[in-house]
């Protein structure tokens, strides 16, 4: 199973003087079970791109194959595609509307025409997956905190049992702990349910920690695509297109510029800590301490 995008173009005002490419010759393939981070400055085409993946926007030219089938082919079931590729928009809590949390999460599967038992089963599963305590299920979604509301909205998409989950900045406006909680839950979905995840984010630190692969968009074109370590190598180019690398990347490069023999590929705090401790000869000491404790 995969999503394959071939020569995708999306042009606003095609054929007029205002003609503008929102997407230009975008190509990639995402395999089943990948965790992809999608980055790019505001207006780089990220949101436009993800709306193509579940058929909300139609390309001006090019093709998208979902599990080998062209979604623009005649008779292709777009409705089915939309339940397989779940899209969580920015600030999804603005779309909550039901009287209580549980009914809100039931809305998606209800529209899929499932039985009452199936709908409720799915809603319960989805709410548990996002870690929302049962005591909130009967409450109005509007009485919850920002992080809780967002979980309800994500659960609403999960209840449709998507194979691919796309999230457009799911942590914007959340406090650091709330941000980590949501991202950890996504990681669990990815790991335990083998769900394909595409995460749009402005936080390079989050992307470095969670994604296996990064795609970088600039002016509607895909400019980088690879594992985070490899992409963050290009931190100078990333800066030129309005992005940055995680703070750790800069520290590592500055250490190297001063002759410290440290691995240039480190991108998280934990990796940098371990490497610096090893260089300073403190690593063994720490291990020994750990052993003492164990004994």
């Amino acid at each position, binding site marked *: 199973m995969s999503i394959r995008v071939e020569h995708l173009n999306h042009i606003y005002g095609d054929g007029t003087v205002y003609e503008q490419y929102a997407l230009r010759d975008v190509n990639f393939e995402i395999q089943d079970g990948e965790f992809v981070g999608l980055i*790019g*400055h*505001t*207006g780089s085409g990220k949101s436009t791109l993800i709306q193509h993946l579940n058929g909300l926007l139609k390309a001006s030219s090019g093709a998208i194959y979902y599990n080998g089938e062209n979604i623009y082919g005649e008779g292709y079931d777009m409705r089915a595609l939309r339940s397989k590729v779940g899209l969580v928009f*920015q600030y999804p809590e603005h779309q909550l509307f039901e009287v209580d949390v549980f009914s809100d999460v039931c809305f998606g599967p209800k529209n899929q025409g499932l039985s009452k038992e199936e709908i409720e089963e799915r809603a319960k599963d989805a709410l548990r997956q996002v870690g929302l305590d049962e005591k909130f299920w009967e409450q109005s979604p509007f009485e919850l*905190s*920002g*992080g809780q509301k967002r979980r309800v909205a994500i659960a609403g998409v999960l209840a449709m049992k998507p194979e691919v989950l796309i999230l457009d900045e799911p942590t*914007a*406006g*959340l*406090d*650091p*702990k*709330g*941000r980590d909680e949501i991202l950890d839950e996504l990681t669990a979905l990815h790991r335990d349910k083998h769900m394909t995840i595409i995460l749009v984010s*402005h936080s*390079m*630190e989050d992307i470095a920690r969670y994604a296996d692969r990064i795609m970088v968009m600039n002016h509607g074109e895909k400019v980088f695509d690879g594992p985070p370590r490899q992409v963050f190598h290009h931190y100078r180019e990333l800066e030129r297109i*309005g*992005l*940055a690398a*995680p*703070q*750790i990347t*800069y*520290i590592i490069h*500055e*250490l190297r510029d*001063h*002759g*410290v*023999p440290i691995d240039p590929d480190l991108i998280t*705090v*934990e990796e*940098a*800590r371990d490497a*610096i*401790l090893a*260089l*300073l*000869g*403190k690593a063994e*000491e*720490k291990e020994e301490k750990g052993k003492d404790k164990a004994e």
Partner: protein
Amino acid sequence: MGIIRASKLIYEYIRRDEDEHVEEVNRAIDQLTVDIKKGDFVAVLGHNGSGKSTFAKQINGILLPSGGTVWVSDMNTSDESHIWDIRKTAGMVFQNPDNQIIGNIVEEDVGFGPENLGVPTDEIWKRVDRSLAAVGMTAYRLKSPNKLSGGQKQRVAIAGVMAMKPQCIILDEPTAMLDPNGRKEVIATLHELNKKENITILLITHYMEEVIDADRVIVMDDGKLVMDGTPREIFSHVQELKSYRLDVPQVTELAWELKKAGVDLPDGILSREEFMNAILPLMKKRFPDQVNLEGYCPDVGTFGTESAVK
């Protein structure tokens, strides 16, 4: 006496049923006492629901205290006769730039505030010129706000507030919806206004890196003020911050982790430069032939001097 003062401030969100009986009382601010000095750049941290935004709305009278008092430039916000003067003194900028922009072109949007205040036309144009220059958006004055990036829109929103000549600007997560460049633009603009125009800034944010250049950081939890100090003082308490659902910048966390493992580093490292000043001499000792200290003078590093001055 500070420009913004709160004394034993309490605010309760009260939910009533159809017959106006009180169903639930939710205390969002609980006995908050704080004094903000004129000209300071103050960052407010706290998790979602800690009372930061409720406090911000108290300052320009969008919400009024359930108990205690708020003074803005010595005007009591509960005194209705002052409400317009208070709003002129303390301007607000919110999270979503698209919700705050109403003009068809940039200069119109910036002029909207002073026009509503009944400022004479000549004076409005002067203020528009000045405000756009202050946020670095003069080149865009005749553009449609729709064509701007998120960071540019937020700078226009800030110019709109500036045009009302406030002494103080309160910003409630102004960068939450912006990309890294947009965030940098907005934060740099705020520091400019703070230094050049001596405008007091109260910045509410979840991004720890935006806080390190502030004069003062206050941390709220459960409607109470729980930490108050310079960025260095606050970020020295990594564990305590984490207990309030907050975080520290990556470089601070790395230094803290290394220190925990026995590396000799000072507390509360805030920037890359400070980190390099502290770590490079240690690396030099291990690898004397390979490591160079070019550009760093550990003895008179930023770290030592600043704390000595304070």
